């Protein structure tokens, strides 16, 4: 039997938060634009470095830097779509290959501007919280708590937006049936832009948190990309709630590997990939059954 270890669960929640934020945008794009965006991981890195510049170089407070990073992520995502993807009118495979080109350009820009060394945010909050140590017996720092809390707020806001605003309803309608949405008067171009804004902003937030949790490197996003794909495919492509669930599961699996017998800890990422490949083989529509919700 495996012992329940609250420490692993806490670590899992932090990592899951980052994966959830990254996979929502990936899933949205995969659904509506119909291609796997290989630049999405590097978009996370763009957000992380954007926040680093605003906080570190310009000296703004960290929360301002996070929001600015999200704005940068959204703007870059929308611009990329306008300049590169939209004019292409090509099949999924061609767009996939083009998105690899986009990923390389993002990373090249980051390397040129910030260098290739690992960096970190100078915000403190790395010491374990005593209260958590005493009551729950887990080592968790302010950074981790903040990551989980802000992710919950962002995911909650997205949920409210999808359910209770007209834009949200239009997004869900477009996802369910694009041609029907168009004939019923929904301006799909507006919906598509909204989708890139949301995906880009959440990816940037995820990138900042990844940088906060580990280190900021130009390659950080690409290294996490396949884990995001694992989450998206597990949750069912095109389902925002599926991406959330998939992100949670994959993030947990990633951190809970030590509790799994036989499998060595260092293969935690490999397990995510194996799950992904198995889902692709068994049920490509994902465990959530595909596009039931936006």
């Amino acid at each position, binding site marked *: 039997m495996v012992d329940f270890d609250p420490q692993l669960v806490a670590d899992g929640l932090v990592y899951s938060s980052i994966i959830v934020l990254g996979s929502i945008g990936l899933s949205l794009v995969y659904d509506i634009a119909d291609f796997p965006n290989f630049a999405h991981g590097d978009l996370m890195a763009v957000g992380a470095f954007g926040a680093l510049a605003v906080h570190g170089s310009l000296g703004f407070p960290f929360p301002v830097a996070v929001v600015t990073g999200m704005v940068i992520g959204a703007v870059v995502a929308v611009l990329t779509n306008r300049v590169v993807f939209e*004019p292409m009118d090509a099949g999924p495979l061609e767009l996939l290959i083009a998105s690899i080109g986009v990923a390389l350009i993002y*990373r090249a820009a980051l390397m040129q501007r910030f260098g290739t060394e690992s960096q970190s945010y100078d915000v403190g909050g790395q010491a374990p919280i005593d209260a958590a140590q005493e009551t729950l017996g887990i080592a968790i720092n302010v950074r981790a708590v903040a990551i989980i809390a802000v992710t919950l707020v962002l995911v909650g806001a997205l949920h409210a937006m999808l359910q209770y605003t007209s834009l949200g309803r239009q997004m869900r309608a477009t996802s369910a049936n694009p041609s029907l949405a168009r004939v019923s008067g929904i301006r799909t171009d507006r919906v598509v832009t909204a989708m890139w804004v949301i995906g880009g902003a959440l990816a940037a937030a995820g990138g900042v948190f990844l940088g906060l949790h580990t280190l900021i490197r130009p390659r950080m996003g690409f290294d996490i990309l396949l884990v995001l*794909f694992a989450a998206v495919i597990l949750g069912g492509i095109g389902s925002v709630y599926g991406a959330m669930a998939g992100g949670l599961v994959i993030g947990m699996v990633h951190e809970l590997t030590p509790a799994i017998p036989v499998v060595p800890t260092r293969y935690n990422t490999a397990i995510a990939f194996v799950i992904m490949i198995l889902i692709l083989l068994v049920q490509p529509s994902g465990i959530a059954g595909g596009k039931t919700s936006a």
Partner: protein
Amino acid sequence: MTDGQSFLQSPIGATRGWWDDLETEERNTIVGLAVFGGLLLAATAVGILNPTYLLYLLTLAGMFTLMTLGLNVQWGYTGLVNFSVIAFWGIGAYSAAMVTAERSPLGWELHPVWGVVVAVVASALLATLIAVPTLRLRADYLAIATLGFAEIVRMVINNERAYTNGSAGIPGIPSVAEWVESPDLVSFLTIALLVAVVYLVLRRAQLSPWGRVQRTIRADEDLAQALGKNTFRFKLQSFVLGSVIMALAGVAYVHLITPLITPTGLEPIRTFYVWIGIILGGSGSNRGAVVGGLTIVAIRQAPSFIRNQLLNVPAIAPYVSEINVGALRLFLVGVLVILIVRYRSSGLLPPKREHIWSKTLEDRS
């Protein structure tokens, strides 16, 4: 046959006849290669380029050509998306290193021939293992699945220190430099011979009924099935054949180019380089794959070469020194990829008449 006639005429006439028969793309590529080759020779002559270095680059190009030729079988002939090119290269390189190197954790120190045998067997087995379940997947899923597979291979190599030496890699692989006087030339000639053999084998396969079935599968798999072809069998053969050639490129790398292999050699970016080579060269064309192999090396080397030359110009040197070569390279490759897709380029040498059996082109009145 028109060839016989033209031979009766003057040599110049024969040459002109041959030139007139070429397609525009073929002429452009020949001119381009001639100019490029001329520039390289000129650069070597005036001492900008060291002859040893030129040979090294050509050997490297030969290795990349093996990889583009392998991918051309999978993607160009059959239309299979494989994003684990570098994993099969790595399997080849590590197979050779593990069984032959003095400092391999296995300590077997076998003859390099065994390295080749192990590389072929291992890559064929792994290719079958990944292909059997995934070949029926959609192209984009296949891309993600094979990339996942490649990352798993990299992780295993990184972690199984008892066999692979982990991140330190395996040094001391028996190298061509230990056996001959002028290793650079011998390396180049060996890889050129290998490329030539593989090229001829693949060309024979492409022009055969086997190749025709693969082309039919790429265009319309349902039609191939309706004509009684077991398309799964053909796709599996294509995937395994291509993967084995990639593994051979890995073997060639450790024995002929660098007698050290580490997991960083298995970075996924290299898979994308090979893809760029194949798309730029012309998917489906073996000649295009060769041009693609040369292009990869040019793209990889050009930024640092140009930067070094510009550094000699005092006026702009301070700005040039700010340029991160790695970043510039990624940037150029990224822009290139987007442009290729945007303008639907069919590559420098798209396979027009090349893969059509010449007998089906004759007028048989």
